[in-house]
């Protein structure tokens, strides 16, 4: 196995174009090193992009938050800008692994690994985040919601890398929350549930809703039926119950050592309710 450490995005993209499917991008290596050790992936060349310092930033302007793909989870979690204006996102980042993992893993690496149990994907999708993908020819933008295709598969082409995540500034009276169920703090999510709720001027009715589940299907799952159950209505016990039921229905968890399918489905309901309730609190 060869190893390359390009210093620029251009250099990285041309290496990827040259080696095609034999190349794998590595950043923090938190996820990929496990796959390499278990020999689940055996690339011809590892393209280590951690040396591309231009991809390590967090900035914002009037309309959006911009996160460089090589931002470490820990930086993201601790960033004053994120903590101040997107506290829900900072809290979601806090739930990723342990401090050592968060110091090694990158935001972009986690998303490109496309483990459906990612803690960042559900809240980012719920809040309408967009990914910037680049290759030698140029760049394109894709809604994060459409970025994930299947287990560990994204819409990235062989010669593309993810360079940036852009998160639109949320409208007023909007709350977002991410709830995670795992047997241990620091584990991958057994269930992830993110909710976004925007209330009307009187804070009576929900005018916009986003419900996204993690870890209970091949990709993060946006549950439109659950959103419908909330949108245009007062959020009360009845709409909460409907949203939770829709989320349970939309989920397709697998039995494993973290729990049976049946239990996990029940927990999808519990986590969805909790996420919506907390988003509602934050919006109020």
């Amino acid at each position: 196995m060869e190893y390359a450490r390009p210093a620029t995005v251009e250099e990285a993209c041309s290496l990827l174009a040259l080696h095609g499917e034999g190349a794998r991008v590595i950043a923090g290596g938190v996820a990929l090193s496990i796959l390499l050790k278990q020999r689940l992936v055996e690339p011809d060349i590892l393209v280590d992009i951690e040396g591309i310092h231009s991809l390590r930033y967090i900035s914002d302007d009037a309309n959006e938050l911009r996160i460089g793909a090589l931002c470490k989870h820990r930086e993201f979690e601790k960033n004053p800008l994120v903590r101040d204006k997107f506290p829900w996102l900072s809290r979601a980042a806090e739930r990723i692994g342990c401090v050592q993992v968060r110091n090694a893993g990158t935001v972009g690496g986690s998303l490109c690994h496309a483990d459906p149990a990612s803690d960042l994907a559900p809240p980012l999708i719920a809040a309408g985040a967009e990914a910037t993908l680049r290759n030698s020819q140029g760049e394109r933008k894709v809604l994060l919601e459409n970025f994930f295709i299947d287990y560990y598969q994204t819409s990235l082409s062989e010669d593309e890398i993810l360079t940036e995540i852009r998160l639109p500034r949320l409208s007023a009276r909007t709350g977002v929350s991410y709830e995670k169920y795992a047997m241990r703090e620091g584990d991958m999510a057994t269930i992830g549930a993110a909710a976004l709720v925007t209330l009307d001027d009187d804070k009576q009715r929900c005018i916009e809703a986003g419900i996204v589940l993690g870890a209970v299907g091949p990709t993060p799952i946006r549950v439109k039926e659950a959103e419908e159950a909330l949108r245009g209505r007062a959020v009360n016990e009845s709409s909460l119950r409907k949203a939770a039921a829709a989320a349970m229905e939309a989920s397709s968890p697998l039995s494993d050592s973290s729990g049976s399918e049946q239990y996990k489905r029940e927990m999808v309901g519990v986590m969805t309710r909790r996420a919506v309730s907390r988003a509602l609190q934050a919006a109020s």
Partner: protein
Amino acid sequence: MTELKVVGEKLPRVDAREKVMGKAVYVDDVQLPGVLRGKILHSPYPHAGIAWIDTSPAERLPGVRAVITAKDVPDARHGACYLDQPMLAREKVRYVGDYVAAVAADDEETALEACNLIEVEYEELPTLFDPVEAMASEAPLIHEHLAEYGLLQPLARCVENSNIHNHFQLRKGDVEKALGEADIVVENRFSAPMIQNGYLEPFGVVADIDGQGNLTCWVSTQGIRWMQRSLQDLTGIDRNKIRIIVPYVGGGFGGKGDISAAAICTVLAMKAGRPVKIVFTREEIFLSGNNRVPVITHLKDGVKKDGSLLAREVKVIMDSGAYSGMTSMIVTNAGFGGSGPYDIPNVKIDSYGVYTNNVPGSAFRGFGTPEIEWAIESQMDIIAEKLGMDRIAIRLKNIYRNGAISATGEKLQSVGLEETIMKATQAAEFNQPPLPPAGGKGMASAHKYSMAPGAACAYVEVKIDGSLELRQAVVELGQGSNTVLAQMVAEEFKVPLEKITVALNDTATTPFDLMTGSSRATYNMGNAVRLACEDARRQVRERGAEILEADPDDLIVENGMVYVKGVPEKSIPFRKLFVHGGYPLLIGSGIFNQKSKTVDLETGQSERPCAFWMYSTQCAEVEVDEETGQVRVVGFTAAHDVGKAINPDLVVGQIVGGVVQGQGIALMEKVEMENGRILNSNFLDYKMGTVHETPGHIIPIIVEEAHQEGPYGAKGIGEGVLAPTAAALSNAIYDAVGVRIHDLPLTPEKIYFALKKR
């Protein structure tokens, strides 16, 4: 007794600095020139005949220096009790992971690749994964020649033509009659799954053979002499040519020391003519068969209305998997205390060790006791509730006290159980209501034996500069034995702890010790160390007497000086003892041999089946999330009777560490197996408690009910800590939400669905 100066003091560990600095040496740090890496090929089948093996594709791979199968090694087997395990599978494999062949190559990658090139033709055989099915008389045999195997432990009895390798029975009084006379009879079944010992340092071994055919083996093991003996049996090398060196060991919990792998490493080194190193991956540790044996416990108790236990019938089934390992011994030893720390007039215990085609289970901190105590202490709360009795009161009504006659007929001494109950429940404010809305409190008491018979030996060398070197073979695996034993030497010579060095564990220089296990080091080696110090002090006094022209019995030895009692101003330093008359060597030796009394195989009766008993009571406080079934452990109080704390800080370390470990075991740990194949052989999928799950607070309490034969009254601590933990937690969960789980671990899912049925 004279005033103690070093024993009983909270002194820093003697190995703290080098461990914190990362300078402590472990097996993987041993670097020899030209060393090869060894890898083992594991069986993919749970039970299959081996038709043929073709190693030639592996031998042709560049960088491969040796490939071995069973035909390259003597037809011999090893075991702690039954000699039932070959180092490499011979006619057949008995579990998924069984050792089939091995390779030594220039590097680990090549060795692994070569293993994958070895071709093996298997013929699948009928499999057994359920120990109850395996006990049935018509079950296929996993070891056809069980009755012919060599037996190292006289207390084990197999059932011929079956998969039962040990059936221990204990009979006291008349259980049938007493059950008929009881006001209530309570019957329940509990189980504890296979778990992994989960130590940090993976098992490792380096084997090197010199020009004279002498083997030197650096190995991470808890059983040095057992390892040496087994290597002789398996490889044919004379024992006097086998030198075992054990540097620091990074945790063991009863599961450190893979004998087959050490023998394989040795044979690879013989064949390759170069030193070989094997270091397991985490996955290989799970496969190596040093996991905790799973245990099923049936209890049937007859109780009077006033809460007194009239009769207890116990049936224990231990699934040892493909080989008996230490399980045969666990069956017997855990059987001695299998009715719990209670004075019950009628007791009947039957415990069984059973072969299956599961990955082998063996010893783990507690050696069967925590798994049985988990059942007994759950049962005690069930009984208390049925009788409407207080949970503390029912225990106080029945517990062992000094002078009680145990289930085996032993007159008990040093029973600090009542004090642990009183102190733990008081510190835990057990009678105060728990936190609303779903808080709960639980308690459990336990006892744990330490094995006998067994010898421990020590040398104490007095050095010319007044310092002392202790040579002994208890393995320092994190428990703090080097510190505790050094404190004893310092105490005996009345010198500061800094004057003591503890030698590297090496069969060439350190004398016999049975093993590092059964919480036996402080008591057994402590006694040996005191005897060695007494012997050395005698020699110091005799030499001093010549110089001082006094009676040796009138001399005082302290602070590296000798003087006539009452005349300290005329003291002489140790240096003079060596210079005067030319005696350049001064070594004291001590042999402590803890004997046991014969055990009647029909009744399990013995007046002294073990060395001593440790007693404990723990109280847990939990909060249950009723929507998810998740348990948060708010606090833990753990009171342990250790006889005498040689170093209270280290005892506290054992208690706190044990509570944290025990909590993870109770709430989440389980080796998941499907048709004999382990599904979670890594620390991502195998869940152990982490710092996040540590209880909000832990209150450790040391109780010191001195043991007449213990050094300074000391007994032990290591394994006792785990004994009550699972039941204390389960009882707290019941107190919180009225849900009783019978099968460990106490996962959120089990609690959630039990809550739905409530």
